């Protein structure tokens, strides 16, 4: 019996094999959304827990990687929804904040503050599309929406971000 069939049948060893094969990839996907390594580790475990509970619904002929990414995205989105108003800089971002020393620290902080205040669904697609530069198709598949809707969400996220930055006094170009 194939690994995915054994997993779908509830075989724990098959699940362990799949976990070890995919944990890095799932973690890599999540950490780029939540931008905190500790939270990403917890969410990786949460993702696989959801995968294990939903094993009955998985078709062994299906794409496990895409299915896992979709569940990971939902777990990360749930996290963003509960921590929406948190504007403190996560540990991974603290070092990333030094990306461009030419930009004033105050401006960087304003951008971060505005970004972390975005509604979760916009923040998710904006992070993946604008910062991580993932293709729209891949984001669409992971979120479970069309690529056109991803574009709409990116556009709306940018519009909200621009308004927030303007209200914070940051100099941003045309509206």
């Amino acid at each position: 019996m194939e690994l995915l069939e054994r997993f779908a049948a509830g075989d724990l060893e098959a699940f362990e094999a799949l976990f070890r094969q995919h944990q890095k990839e799932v973690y890599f996907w999540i950490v780029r959304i939540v931008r905190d390594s500790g939270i990403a580790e917890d969410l990786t475990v949460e993702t696989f827990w959801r995968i294990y509970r939903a094993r009955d619904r998985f078709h062994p002929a299906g794409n496990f990687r895409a299915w896992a990414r979709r569940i990971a995205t939902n777990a990360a989105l749930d996290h963003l929804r509960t921590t929406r108003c948190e504007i403190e800089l996560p540990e991974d971002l603290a070092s990333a904040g030094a990306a461009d020393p030419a930009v004033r620290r105050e401006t960087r902080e304003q951008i971060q503050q505005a970004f972390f205040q975005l509604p979760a669904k916009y923040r998710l697609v904006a992070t993946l599309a604008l910062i991580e530069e993932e293709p729209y198709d891949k984001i669409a598949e992971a979120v479970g929406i069309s690529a056109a809707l991803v574009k709409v969400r990116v556009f709306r996220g940018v519009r909200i971000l621009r308004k927030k930055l303007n209200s914070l006094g940051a100099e941003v170009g045309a509206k």
Partner: protein
Amino acid sequence: MSNEENNKEIKGLLKTAIAPLKDPELRRDLWPQMLQKLSQQPARVPWFDWALAAILSAVLLLFPGAIPALLYHL
């Protein structure tokens, strides 16, 4: 300003503040944590236990006089 230019400008601004994560390393194997979470799963109550409880509740509701007899036998 077109949408493309709009996105490009914001993308540039965002990247000055939040740099992309190039190769985030997973620092440890998460399987032990996974096993711990699996072992914490609440035990599932079999469907026939729920059915038995439902039948018992229905009987007690329909025949309240059976309650003393039940208590006597417990």
